[in-house]
């Protein structure tokens, strides 16, 4: 480390006494801060420090509140307050003075004030509102430093609600002549975008302008915004790909001024940012990816290995190459790069190399195979982080053959890990692997035992839950179930006989549940023995009361026979007087059930494990109770959402008298407390009381749906085989099967280091062969065939296999693993490029067509739906033209003229009268053309999809599948066409209903079909439409409006611009809204107007407008969350475009 910075704190006192030292020379001896710091460094204990700081704070407090303190002194005081705060002592009294200083001081004092404010306060702090005015003033200042300070504080924190107040000023700064101001303004806008995306929707084209700014610094700043926006919606910015590529090309080519260089690398941070953006854009998109291949190649070539920062670029490059649609020669180069990283002696690079390997390993497992020896070495690396990363990599390549070795390595690491976070993470992974690939019962139970004892009480509750579920639900074979449970019982009994005191609570809970459920399976085991073991747990000091109740429930299940009763009697007596109500209840249950064996037999019958319980979900058995309660004056039950609305109404100062209502806390009583023992024991057979409902709720809360339990069925089917293979792996060479021999041979050829072997080397080699078993091509094929797919963290390979096995091809998501496959794909699927170029049609293009279509449509209703993005397309080329940035034109999109007229004739008769949107092409594959439009009916919105077959041959088994997050799609046609003869068109109709409102809604669909003699194929497409298509006028009277207004709970307010027209501007503005958004104007009284509309089906939204200070103050209310926000956005757009 540098010796220049060699002035340690330990030397501090001596430094302070010697004023000749440079560090202390800068301090004025009279400085109060200096005194304070000196004081603190001389202290020896935390306690003394606390006392000193409190004294200091008291003195600061006194001085700041004194009227005689000048601003200059205030500045000095503020710095001292900041110092105290940074040590963790609160100085809240100074906050208001910091704001005052920022407001009233001279520039330098202001600077301190702003700094203090940005350190002291946070976005939601109430005092921050006091700063808004100061920021407003400073933004308008002619002193550039003041403007800079204001922008900086704004980007650190600003109250969300006040953004509209300063937004125009910040926007204005985008045109400022000074680049530093423009740059800061862009970042401030980015901040706004992060905290309130809706507020800055309308300035997206200004971001584009910033991207084309003549100063590269401003352009760089705008990339932050683009990275974020593209992450959220890559489809929307495909047209910019070429621009980003051009910029990167110029940067890489050294066209930037020298002072953007860092260690003679041109603008490395800019390059990194661009590469990230490109990888987002090129993901799953062959045509967009094709644009960037060249520049990626160039980047790889230019980044010569000479400095850290070039490695950063290389790493991003490699990640990008593996993220976008693959190209074989680039992949090769990237793989080489990864190799360099992994083999590098520099530890940071090794780390990144492992990360990169982890990222790509599922596409290209061979790469891991190449570096297997390095990976093995990393497993024993002294740096825990490297070790952990290696395990992460191994986790990704685990399969049924190598699971035993990998899990063993992970458990070894777990034993030495001291970091909670790592432990929790790894424990989850081990449990996942064990469930998926366990070769046999013993291994599974033992591994889970280790997981439970190491994971302790930190681990995710999912793990024990899913483990118990696995045990209780069992698998196909009854015999296997029995063996597994039996083994578990055996293992737990011996654990309890050992030292149960050391086991974590969660594990004890699992143990007691399993023993309660299944110890009867082991016939030679006396229940009394188990009972005694369990009773021992109760006596241990460290057992928590939650665990105790699990134990008591287990005992309840087991208490039969003479011997049992005596143990339980004692226990239940002890706990019947427990302070804990749950324990007391369990003890009571235990007492009664142990005495009354007949009752016990009825309540806790065995071996009904999987029979579905009959659940009376209507709770009809409570009817009597309810009617009785109602008769005695209880309030009727209201569902939670209704209550919430009433509550919200109450907040809005309801003037109506309070109705009779009693607090009902049904919803608050937690019915799905997952860890409660009742819940789990019930799943094994308790039934018949009202808690059934909770059982139902409980079992659905066990989050197992997402977990693929391959082990469940597959493990057992392939069990014997897997065991054998695993056994062979353990014992090397002589016993290997031919396929393994090949495997080993190939690894020999790939890693020359393997050949002649000294002792430890051979050990490593053995480890390698067992770790990487099943990764070479042959065995991975047969693996894929028999086991279920791996978790889809990355796009899987498996293209080759899936097509050969005749499965459906998902063109848009598939990726290939090996170079040869890439070539195949490119030759055999000319459709690929077709599809994506069609899909790449940016929404802006699509929507602008839509809007054209609507305006030209024959008008049964005169609406003109202006779509949000329509102006972007127009403005973009010209912007770029202005700034002479070459090749920045948006990606060319296919001319969609052809289908328009062609399909209109196919529109069903009942729909052709209504106004419909422009017909938009969705995708084209070979001879199949998909187009769509939407038709606005009075009560519904119909999506019409046309499929035309332009070839001679018939297309069979057409299957359309639509889905959307925001809307509900239901098929209108009774019997959808499945086979399409040559040169014909099929029409599909879907009715759309909004589930959750959002500004734009998108329908994503898949069409699968089969050409004669070919395998079936599938293509994805998406269709986007604005929320306004779902809006219909709602005719209400003013009185009705009044009552509805009070009843609605979700609202939003915003100021909109007025349209100034000769006549009353309010009327003009409202007419625009009426025309464009189909709102119903209820009444206009003076400067106020009320409007109403409804979202299909029948979800009203009310709007109240008032002209105030030259703007239109709009207040929207609706019972539907988000609807007001979305609608206000469309209002804003409609008025802007007017």
């Amino acid at each position, binding site marked *: 480390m540098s010796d220049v910075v060699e002035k340690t704190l330990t030397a501090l006192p001596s430094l302070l006494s010697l004023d000749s030292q440079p560090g202390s020379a800068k301090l004025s001896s009279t400085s109060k801060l200096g005194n304070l710091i000196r004081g603190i460094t001389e202290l020896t204990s935390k306690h003394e420090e606390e006392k000193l700081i409190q004294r200091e704070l008291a003195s600061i407090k006194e001085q700041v509140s004194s009227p005689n303190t000048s601003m200059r002194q205030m500045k000095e005081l503020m710095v001292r307050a900041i110092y105290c705060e940074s040590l963790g002592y609160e100085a809240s009294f100074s906050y208001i003075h910091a704001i005052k200083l920022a407001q009233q001081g001279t520039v330098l004092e202001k600077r301190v004030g702003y700094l203090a404010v940005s350190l002291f306060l946070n976005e939601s702090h109430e005092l921050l509102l006091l700063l808004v005015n100061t920021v407003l003033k400073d933004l308008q200042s002619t002193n550039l430093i003041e403007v800079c300070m204001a922008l900086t504080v704004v980007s650190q924190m600003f109250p969300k609600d006040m953004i509209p107040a300063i937004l125009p000023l910040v926007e204005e700064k985008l045109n400022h002549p000074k680049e530093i101001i423009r740059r800061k303004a862009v970042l401030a806008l980015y901040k706004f975008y992060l905290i309130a995306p809706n507020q800055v929707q309308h300035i997206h084209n200004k971001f584009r302008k910033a991207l084309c700014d003549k100063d590269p610094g401003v352009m760089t700043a705008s990339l932050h915004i683009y990275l974020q926006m593209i992450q959220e919606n890559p489809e929307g910015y495909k047209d910019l790909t070429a621009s980003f590529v051009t910029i990167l090309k110029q940067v890489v080519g050294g066209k930037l001024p020298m*002072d953007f260089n860092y260690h003679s690398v041109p603008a490395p941070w800019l390059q990194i940012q661009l590469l990230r953006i490109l990888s987002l854009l090129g993901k799953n998109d062959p045509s967009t990816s094709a644009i960037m291949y060249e520049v990626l190649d160039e980047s790889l070539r230019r980044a010569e290995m000479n400095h850290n920062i070039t490695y950063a670029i290389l790493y991003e490059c490699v990640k990008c190459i593996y993220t976008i649609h693959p190209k074989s020669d680039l992949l090769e180069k990237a793989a080489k790069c990864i190799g360099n990283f992994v083999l590098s002696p520099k530890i940071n690079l090794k780390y990144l190399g492992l990360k990169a390997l982890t990222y790509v390993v599922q596409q290209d497992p061979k790469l891991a195979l190449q570096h297997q020896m390095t990976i093995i070495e990393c497993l024993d690396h002294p740096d825990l982080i490297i070790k952990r990363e290696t395990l992460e990599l191994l986790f990704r390549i685990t399969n049924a053959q190598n699971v035993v070795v990998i899990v063993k390595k992970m458990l070894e690491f777990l034993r030495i890990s001291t970091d909670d976070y790592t432990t929790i993470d790894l424990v989850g992974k081990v449990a996942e692997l064990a469930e998926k690939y366990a070769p046999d019962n013993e291994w599974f139970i033992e591994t889970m035992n280790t997981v439970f004892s190491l994971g302790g009480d930190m681990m995710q509750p999912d793990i024990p839950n899913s483990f118990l579920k696995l045990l209780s639900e069992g698998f196909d074979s009854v015999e296997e179930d029995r063996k597994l449970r039996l083994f578990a019982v055996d293992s737990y009994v011996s654990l309890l006989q050992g030292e149960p005191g050391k086991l974590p609570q969660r594990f004890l809970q699992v143990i007691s549940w399993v023993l309660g459920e299944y110890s009867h399976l082991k016939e030679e085991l006396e229940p009394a023995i188990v009972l005694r073991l369990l009773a021992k747990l109760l006596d241990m000091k460290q057992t928590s009361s939650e665990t105790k109740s699990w134990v008591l429930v287990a005992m309840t299940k087991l208490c039969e026979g003479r011997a049992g009763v005596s143990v339980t009697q004692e226990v239940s007596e002890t706990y019947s007087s427990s302070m804990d109500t749950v324990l007391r209840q369990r003890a009571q249950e235990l007492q009664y059930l142990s005495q009354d064996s007949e009752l016990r037999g009825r309540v806790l019958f065995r071996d009904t494990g999987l029979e579905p319980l009959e659940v009376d979900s209507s709770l009809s058995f409570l009817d009597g109770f309810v009617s009785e309660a109602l008769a005695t004056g209880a309030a009727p039950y209201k569902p939670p959402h209704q209550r919430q609305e009433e509550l919200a109404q109450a907040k809005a100062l309801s003037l109506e008298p309070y109705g009779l209502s009693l607090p009902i806390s049904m919803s608050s009583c937690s019915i799905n407390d997952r860890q409660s023992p009742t819940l789990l024991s019930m799943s094994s057979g308790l039934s018949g009381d009202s808690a059934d409902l909770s059982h139902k709720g409980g079992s659905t809360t066990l989050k197992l749906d997402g977990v693929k339990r391959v082990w469940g069925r597959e493990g057992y089917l392939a069990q014997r085989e897997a065991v054998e293979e695993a056994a062979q792996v353990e014992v090397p060479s002589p016993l290997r099967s031919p396929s393994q021999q090949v495997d080993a041979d190939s690894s020999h050829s790939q890693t020359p280091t393997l050949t002649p072997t000294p002792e430890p080397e051979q050990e490593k080699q053995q480890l390698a062969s067992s770790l990487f078993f099943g990764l070479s091509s042959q065995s991975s094929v047969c693996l894929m065939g028999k086991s279920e797919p791996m978790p889809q963290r990355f796009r899987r390979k498996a293209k080759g296999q899936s097509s050969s096995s005749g499965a459906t091809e998902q063109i848009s998501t598939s990726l290939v693993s090996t170079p040869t496959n890439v070539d195949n794909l490119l030759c055999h699927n000319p459709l690929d490029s077709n599809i994506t170029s069609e899909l790449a049609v940016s929404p802006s293009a699509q929507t602008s067509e839509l809007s054209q279509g609507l305006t030209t449509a024959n008008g049964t209703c005169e609406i003109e739906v202006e779509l949000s993005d329509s102006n972007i397309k127009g403005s973009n080329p010209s912007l770029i033209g202005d700034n002479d940035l070459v090749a920045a034109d948006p990606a060319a999109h296919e001319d969609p003229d052809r289908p328009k007229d062609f399909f209109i004739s196919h529109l069903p008769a009942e729909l052709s009268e209504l106004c419909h949107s422009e017909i938009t092409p969705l995708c084209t594959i070979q001879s199949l053309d998909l187009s769509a439009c939407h038709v606005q009916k009075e009560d519904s919105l119909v999506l019409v999809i046309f499929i035309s077959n332009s070839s001679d041959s018939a297309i069979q088994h057409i299957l359309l599948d639509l889905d959307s997050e925001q809307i509900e799609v239901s098929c209108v046609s009774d019997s959808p066409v499945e086979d399409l003869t040559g040169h014909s068109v099929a029409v599909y109709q879907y009715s759309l209903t909004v589930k959750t409102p959002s500004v734009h809604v998108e329908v994503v669909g898949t069409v699968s079909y089969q050409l004669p003699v070919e395998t079936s194929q599938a293509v994805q497409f998406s269709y986007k439409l604005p929320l306004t298509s779902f809006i219909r006028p709602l005719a209400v009277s003013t009185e009705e409006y009044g009552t509805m207004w009070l009843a609605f709970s979700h609202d939003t307010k915003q100021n909109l611009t007025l349209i100034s027209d000769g006549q009353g501007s309010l009327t003009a503005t409202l007419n625009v809204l009426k025309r464009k958004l189909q709102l119903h104007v209820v009444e206009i009284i003076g400067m106020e107007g009320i409007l109403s509309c409804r979202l299909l089906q029948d979800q009203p939204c009310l709007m109240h407008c008032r002209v105030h200070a030259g703007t239109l103050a709009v207040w929207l209310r609706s019972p539907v969350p988000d609807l007001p926000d979305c609608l206000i956005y469309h209002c804003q757009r409609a008025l802007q475009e007017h």
Partner: protein
Amino acid sequence: MIKAILIFNNHGKPRLIRFYQYFAEDMQQQIIRETFHLVSKRDDNVCNFLEGGSLIGGSDYKLIYRHYATLYFVFCVDSSESELGILDLIQVFVETLDKCFENVCELDLIFHMDKVHYILQEVVMGGMVLETNMNEIVAQVEVQNRMEKSEGGLSAAPARAVSAVKNMNLPEIPRNINIGDINIKVPSLSPF
């Protein structure tokens, strides 16, 4: 995005704390303590990246740090930042500090905490990397310092240095200072 920048010394005493995401005061102190705990027990010859301080937020977050003599510089970032990029950003920041304070040492950071903050503000703004060119950062800070003498405004400030505006299609802007290769005298890069 950068979530937090923490500088503390070998004893865990905070020297500069800047959070770009809101955490309550006691949470902040806890994060500082946890981060120090994680970082301080690592040798100098291990990698500069750490994952999972559980407090600041799970697997998406990374700690990237450098250790200079008595001080640890820790940047806590999310997955949208490049590890090596941030590592070099720390270097840029430290070199800038060195330039501004003429052989920076821990004492400078203690006694001129406010100045360090101003310098940091020119490097990172609202969690976003604003400027990575050391000369530019120094220029901005100096303009502000000059205000101490005269409150003239930014107009006299040197714009970004121009050296070779080649035929880059990003339009030209006057850059009037030519700074040769940056001469680094301070903290030698820690072994990678």
